[in-house]
């Protein structure tokens, strides 16, 4: 199986550690990933802001880069949802590829058939199911099943977990006041758990919540799920 890593523009540019964790994790499980250098962005920001033509160019570029792979795995639930839901609508010929694109937890659970990935993470962690993972991708409890198998972890429920954190891409700028109000409630819920780590399957939402957490000096760090799953006793995250 030829597996390609689609890191997404945000992770590639801002969160390289998430990509490195994906590579480590998948190699540890006996699979190799390629990183096709032609990749850039799935087009979500442009589509969601109304710039459809720009988005279409990016969709075509994505199809050219990843067309030859058996599976594409990505650490962003929202980009995976964009590819699966929107790419076929924007460029109908890409629909075959869209179904071969998997978000990390789907890839682990459904394609590789594992939930125990041999991880070790001795911290109190709470998990935020991002809206796109929940309602567009329908990843269900896959992330939690993976987290539950992590050794040493103290996994605590997040109150009102399914509530949107208020990120929403350019929504965070265009409706900054409402976005901040939503974020404040999410931050309060996170603090209520007493967890020192907030994790999610999307760094974009974590960037937003994390930005408010550090601003308020909450003492909670945000970590992508991949980094927890890649963490081991020998090489802790």
């Amino acid at each position, binding site marked *: 199986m030829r597996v390609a890593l689609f890191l997404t523009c945000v992770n590639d540019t801002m969160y390289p550690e998430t990509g490195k964790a994906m590579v480590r994790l998948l190699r540890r499980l006996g699979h190799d990933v390629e990183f096709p250098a032609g990749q850039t*962005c799935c087009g979500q920001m*442009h589509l969601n802001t109304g710039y459809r033509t*720009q988005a279409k160019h990016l969709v075509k570029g994505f199809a050219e880069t990843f067309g030859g792979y058996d599976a594409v795995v990505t650490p962003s639930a929202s980009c995976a949802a964009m590819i699966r839901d929107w790419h076929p609508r924007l460029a109908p010929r890409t629909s075959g590829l869209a179904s071969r694109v998997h978000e990390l937890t789907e890839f682990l659970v459904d394609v590789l058939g594992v939930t125990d990935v041999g991880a070790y993470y001795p911290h109190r962690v709470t998990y935020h199911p991002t809206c796109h993972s929940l309602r567009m991708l329908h990843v269900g409890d896959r992330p939690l099943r993976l987290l539950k198998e992590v050794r040493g972890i103290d996994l605590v429920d997040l109150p009102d977990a399914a509530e949107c954190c208020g990120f929403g891409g350019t929504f965070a700028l265009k*409706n900054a006041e409402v976005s901040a*109000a939503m974020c404040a409630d999410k931050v309060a819920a996170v603090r209520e758990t007493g967890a020192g780590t907030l994790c999610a399957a999307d760094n974009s939402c*974590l960037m937003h919540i994390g930005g408010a957490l550090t601003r308020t000096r909450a003492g909670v760090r945000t970590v992508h799920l991949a980094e927890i799953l890649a963490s081991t006793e020998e090489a802790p995250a």
Partner: protein
Amino acid sequence: MPAFPDAAREAVADTRLRGNLAHATGTIRERRAAAVAELDDWDALRESGKQIKDHVLANLGHYLRRLEEKVTEAGGTVHWARDAAEANRIVADLVKATGESEVVKVKSMATQETGLNEALAEEGIAAYETDLAELIVQLGHDRPSHILVPAIHRNRSDIRDIFRREMPDAPEGLTDAPADLAEAARRHLRAKFLSAKVAVSGVNFAVADTGTLVVLESEGNGRMCLTLPETLISVMGVEKIVPSMRDLEVFLQLLPRSSTAERMNPYTSTWTGVHPGDGPRDFHLVLLDNGRTETLADEVGRQALRCIRCSACLNVCPVYERAGGHAYGSPYPGPIGAILSPQIRGIGSDVDASLPYASSLCGACFEACPVAIDIPEVLVHLRARAVEDGPRHPVERAAMTAAGWTLRSPARLALAQRLASASRRIVAPRGRIRRLPGPLNAWTETRDAPAPPAESFRAWWARTDGGRTEPRAPEDGTDDGTDGRTEEGQ
């Protein structure tokens, strides 16, 4: 009307309003989820509701003609109104023809949409709202902020103050106990019902096969209005049709559970034309287009016309919960308002151009909608229309074009990443960015922004051959441990 973000700013800062809304929507949200979970065929019902509505919309001309025929056969009179002004004119003329100068009203979204009460007032006709929440809004010289609970932004003590101030027959020393408030309203309204000769109603469903109109309500005030007066004028959007009585069954399950979280609403009134000695002697039906035909022409946007105004999408919407209903600048607030108003009114005004952006696209509305309107899809579709319609946001357009140009080429993206990495010591000496320039400042008002990492993933992959020439991948490349990641205590 100010654009959505400007109107929302005030609401977000209003703690009392936020408290009222969070409490009311939170309660109804949980109850709705429980009421829906009781039915194991909910998904099938939802699909039926969707298909019935889609079928009607695809054959709207046919069903409208059939409805007209049947209503006329039953002794009613059908009027066609192209827009709000025409609808209001028709109603005003009908009222004047009776010689009356007062009407009682059954809660109606269509007449909110046309601004009927104001139009009637200009003709010297007083319209009295009889739905309790509408009454509160009317007496408070206020605007509705919710489809189903127009006074959701008010709490008990607000209501007592309004009644004391504006209701001439309010009892002395009225308290804010719900039973007392309801009793005061009941007495006030009873007098109106008994004297009213003309009533104006909305319509939840119109059955094309029989010419039957249907109103669902909780209080019974609607039924009083529909039965006591001599003349009844009902105003409905052209999309409110169902083909047959059998189809009603689906909606009588979908609507109450979605809106009030009840298995069945307390009052369901149906009426067909006129019957000597029973109910109004004169019945008029006004069929309102007001932008609906144009909405129907839009392949993606037309699904908004399936809406049965249950308000489930409002109650689950995190944006509505913070911004309140008034920020949407229309009688249709919340997610449905964000897609319906810009379609029926056009995207010309500031508020209508801003509405498609009044969502984080979290998808909760789609999940809750009993007729499966893909609201996020329509929002994204309307955003594209807002962008195509003109250079409303030249800065944004330039930024998006530049971003698109950069992202279209891996080489250009890599260059941009190198520039970002090189600037990290300057823009974020302590690992976090506390202030971004220009429009991006909207981000850093309340949130830090991450500093760019020392090296992008792409650069790391190229330098280390995918980590193969580096003993252990992480940390090594980043000297202070920040890769744009949140770390406290710097």
